[in-house]
């Protein structure tokens, strides 16, 4: 569909004036393991194109297609939709310079099925050698994506990235207890032995720590330690929903009128940086053609700034923060990229020290079902551990955690020095806090 961009822009601007064409072309190939064996090799070729216009009454029209024969239909259809569309609170941006940032590893394309299969086999063999009764699944993939945005103000923003990912899941059943652990990463570069070893090492540690099942304590004043993965799942969704331009614009964010106010522990600093090179979410510009920049979300416990696309920025009288993201079938909405939280002063290996009795949160089940907008979180611990006297003594089951992010992140006891990568798109430390309610049926 790449050869249709200019033609569609010309046709659409002749009809509607202010227009924007956005399209993607991507491919992905992956090998999949099920029940310890290779099961499927899959590939996906995907393309689509979208037209957005601001009509003469200042209303937005949008439609898209993945059918090359229907591209011309977009012009009339989008015009008809604009009669009912939202009032545009913005103009399409003008041409600007974009920062240069690396997001492509040329060696990704050369990765073969056999290489991916070999990594999968060796990861699974390493797990089976210690846990022969385990059932492993795995997925190794390589992909390539190109997107382009052109508008009637002369913007031509192109972005290319490679994406390689892998994932390993392990299942162990003993009696009626079913244990599932999983881990993996996403990167612009091919999988290598080091990152497979790291992930396998983390999985083995989780499996070893899960061999005893113990009763969890309950209450509201236990120290609760969050691994980077646990922190990501528990706290980021309810916290970040308050910064989302959509919630700010509608008035449902609890952060309205509180920008600059200290609401969290002063050791907490969280930024979003789309210009961090060679991550799967690196981008020189957003999907509306606005140059990317770093955002200070939380600085020393104080609430920084919301993340905005063009429309939400216009609604609250600000400028876009370069966070308008979309797939080809949807209009842009505010979204973050590479989220980093600063480390604290406790060595990563010492985060268990001094915990007489507490809980370690690793994996959650059912997070996001609560009232996230208000900062609430609650979830079942799909993988959680009991800590006694600074050591993991076993896995806890049938245990739920709940609380409010603004309360829990004001009762922080310790933050680890070194943040760790989570799924290639976050870098987060270990965090120990109180103010999390633990409920259990045991």
């Amino acid at each position, binding site marked *: 569909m790449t050869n249709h961009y200019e033609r569609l822009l010309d046709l659409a601007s002749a009809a509607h004036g202010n227009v924007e064409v956005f399209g993607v072309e991507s491919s992905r190939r992956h090998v999949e393991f099920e029940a310890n064996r290779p*099961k499927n090799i*899959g590939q996906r070729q995907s393309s689509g194109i979208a037209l957005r216009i601001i009509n003469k009454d200042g209303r937005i029209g949008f439609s898209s297609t993945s*059918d090359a024969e229907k591209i011309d239909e977009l012009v009339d259809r989008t015009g*008809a939709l604009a009669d009912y569309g939202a009032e545009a609170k913005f103009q399409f941006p003008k041409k600007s310079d974009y920062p240069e940032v690396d997001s492509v590893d040329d060696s990704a394309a050369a990765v073969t099925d056999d290489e991916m299969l070999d990594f999968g086999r060796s990861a699974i063999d390493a797990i089976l050698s210690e846990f022969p009764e385990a*059932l492993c699944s795995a997925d190794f993939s390589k992909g390539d994506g190109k997107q382009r945005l052109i508008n009637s103000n002369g913007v031509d923003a192109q972005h290319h990235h490679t994406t390689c990912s892998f994932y390993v899941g392990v299942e162990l059943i003993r009696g009626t207890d079913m244990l599932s652990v999983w881990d993996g990463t996403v990167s612009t570069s091919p999988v290598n032995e080091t990152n497979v070893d790291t992930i396998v090492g983390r999985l083995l540690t989780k499996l070893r720590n899960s061999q005893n099942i113990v009763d969890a304590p309950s209450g509201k004043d236990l120290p609760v330690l969050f691994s980077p993965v646990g922190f990501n799942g528990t706290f980021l969704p309810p916290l970040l929903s308050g910064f989302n331009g959509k919630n700010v614009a*509608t008035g449902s964010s*609890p952060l309205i009128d509180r920008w600059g106010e200290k609401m969290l522990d002063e050791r907490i600093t969280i930024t979003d940086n789309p210009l961090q090179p060679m991550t799967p979410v690196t981008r020189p510009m957003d999907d509306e053609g606005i140059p990317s920049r770093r955002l200070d979300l939380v600085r020393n416990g104080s609430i920084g700034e919301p993340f905005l696309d063009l429309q939400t920025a216009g609604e609250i009288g600000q400028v876009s923060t370069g966070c308008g993201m979309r797939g080809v079938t949807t209009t842009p909405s505010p979204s973050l990229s590479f989220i980093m939280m600063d480390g604290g002063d406790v060595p990563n290996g010492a985060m268990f020290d001094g915990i007489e009795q507490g809980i370690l949160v690793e994996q959650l089940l059912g997070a996001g079902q609560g009232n996230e907008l208000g900062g609430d979180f609650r979830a079942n611990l*799909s993988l959680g551990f009991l800590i006694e006297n600074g050591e993991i003594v076993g896995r806890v089951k049938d245990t739920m955690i709940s609380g409010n992010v603004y309360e829990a992140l004001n009762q922080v006891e310790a933050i680890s020095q070194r943040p760790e990568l989570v799924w290639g798109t976050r870098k987060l430390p270990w965090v120990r806090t109180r103010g999390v309610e633990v409920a259990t049926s045991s």
Partner: protein
Amino acid sequence: MSYQAQIEDALAGNNADYSEIRIEESDSTRLTYRGRSLDDVNMTSGKGGAVRVCVSGSWGFASFNELSDLKSRVRDAVDQARSLASGNKDESTMLAEVEPHVDIVDPVIVKDPREITLKEKTKLADHYNEIVWNQPGIVSSDIIYGDSSQKIAFGNSDGTYVEQERVHVISRISAQARDGSDVQQAGFSIGALGDYGVFEGLDDDVAEAAKRAVDLLDAKPLTGGQRTVILDPVLAGVFVHEAFGHLSEADNVYENDKLKELMYLGRKFGGAHLNFTDGAGQPGMRGSYKYDDEGTSASLTPLVRDGVLVGRLHSRETAAKTGEAPTGNARAINYRFPPIVRMTNTFIENGEATFDDLLEGVEDGVYVKNWYGGMTQHEMFTFSSGEAYMIRNGEVQEAVRPVMLSGNLFETLENVDAVANDRGFNQGGGCGKGGQMPLPVGTGSPHIRIRNCLISGA
């Protein structure tokens, strides 16, 4: 060339054990209101295809938007499967026998959303939004309306060729109230197969949801712990889907000997009042169809009868490998994915008790209604209510903050001690599995009571 001819031509002469092609055309319309105004109107049309082949038990799959050279897509997929098969020498292709069908299936249409103008749809959604905002104390609202049509042509190397079209209508309406940093929301979801009518006549429901959001600001949160809970038909439907349905999907079991030992047919899970069923053969629901995405006829599968596990859900591969009959539960959300074992419409059959019988003798419990979400990981599950009310001395009393319920299949089903006789249906849900979401599903259940159910604090 017709899709049938294109598919037959592309499949001819390949040397895989099994091969299939799906070609899909789709159109969708979506309205999104955020706050006082319409935020987004979106129409998308799609066209794409998928090839799936099996060689000696190994699979190759490809999805694409470029449909011009189907034959080379088949060749590539066969090469992919063959290269895997060379390393999997002890495997063989096992697929349950299915009678080949050639059929063109008309869509189920009650009131076709495609014949309703955008003007009418936005007018009605505007009207509902106004009802929300007429409620004092509301700070924001979200209304989503969507309709979609999916036309799928499917052919395989066994001689099946089926064309099916399905039209779906969904909506979610929710309202938010705020007091300082305390934000509460209430809402509901609906859906129907081929019936715009489900989006009409919702004035009372909308008004009630808006009022509930404001009232929640004064509702007290519960302390986490174990309690007796009574689930309304909507939430009980989510419960059977999450707590039992997922573990009855045979792809969890067929290569997992340990799980097979736990989930053996004949195992008792609870009292004789437990009777669960799943099936796309139940007509007119969002999870209903005539053939699944492998061309197998839909059925109604008894899963639990009198508290005993009697069946599970299958694709052709899981059926063959467990030696059970195929049930027509292989579904793909669209052409970008291979079909996997999924639920369709999942039911708890009526019991004999009345709702009052369920309340009787409950000294300190919670009546939970409506759903917010749910998730399963093997035997563990959680699901959230949209509403919760205290029960004291057998009476439903004041509203409390909605709760999340959590449990373990093997214990919780034994703790279901009463099933009422007032089955209701819900079609507002979408199910996610293996990256494929939201897949249209339906549920149906009467009120049920669970003793010692773990609920979260809020």
